[in-house]
């Protein structure tokens, strides 16, 4: 139960960060991505700031035998750089550029009542199942 409360709390904090940062505003996202036009680089500081803060937590977490409220720390194990990674990242990039939101901001703005963001979240979930169906053997 405590782990559910903290998961909710970290989701809330993550969402607050997205709202403050500007990542939930498609026009800001597109101004960041449009390097050839009137480029607004501010959003580079979002990922930069987040990585600098998360870096020591991940360095420490890698060495811990367990988390505070869980028996293990689950980290991704895949390391291969292949066509699936490159193709998938490129497809995701097209979606992010078209809509101006990625999944996190989509969820936050769906919670704020933006109809289009809610649709984005639903079709994202659908897209994940579609990818499983199309590309996963068995």
């Amino acid at each position, binding site marked *: 139960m405590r782990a559910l409360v903290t*998961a909710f709390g970290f989701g809330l904090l993550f969402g607050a960060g997205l709202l403050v940062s500007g990542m939930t505003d498609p026009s800001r996202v597109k101004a960041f991505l449009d390097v050839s036009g009137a480029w607004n680089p501010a959003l580079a500081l979002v*990922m930069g700031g987040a990585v600098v803060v998360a870096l020591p*937590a*991940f360095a420490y977490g890698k060495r811990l035998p367990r988390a505070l409220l869980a028996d293990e720390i689950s980290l991704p194990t895949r390391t291969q750089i292949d066509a699936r990674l490159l193709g998938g990242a490129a497809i995701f*990039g097209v979606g992010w550029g078209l809509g101006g939101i990625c999944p996190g901001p989509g969820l936050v703005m769906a919670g704020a009542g933006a109809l289009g963001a809610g649709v984005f979240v639903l079709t994202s979930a659908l897209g994940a*199942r579609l990818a499983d169906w199309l590309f996963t053997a068995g």
Partner: protein
Amino acid sequence: MSVIFVPEQLGLSLLGGVLIGAAAGGLLLVNGRVAGISGILSAATARGTKAWHWAFLAGLLAAGSGAALSGRALPAGLGAGHVMLLAVAGLLAGVGTRLSGGCTSGHGVCGLARLSPRSLVAVLTFMLAAGVTVFLERHGL
């Protein structure tokens, strides 16, 4: 090209990033989980979903609800007029993140924070693809 610097935006983006990094670090050290949002969304809507997936997603939704209730205006581009575009964008985001195993949070924040070369390649690839998409939308075609 030209560059727009809005000092206030720079500060808020950095602050937002710090909050995001704290949330990702906290979820790792307290819950033992990586804050990859596309992965959590995918897992939440698949067989074998766990309660913490929904708790984390509920936190994200609640952040937006709280902002709306406190009177923050919705940004342009997310309303009923953009539903078709966002449906397509969401589908591409869903397929792409499932194949590549992460989005802006999973590869971008958590992957870079754990110094994963795989995530660095993913980030550079989706940034480039997103940049080209916006370029074509605004200046080409």
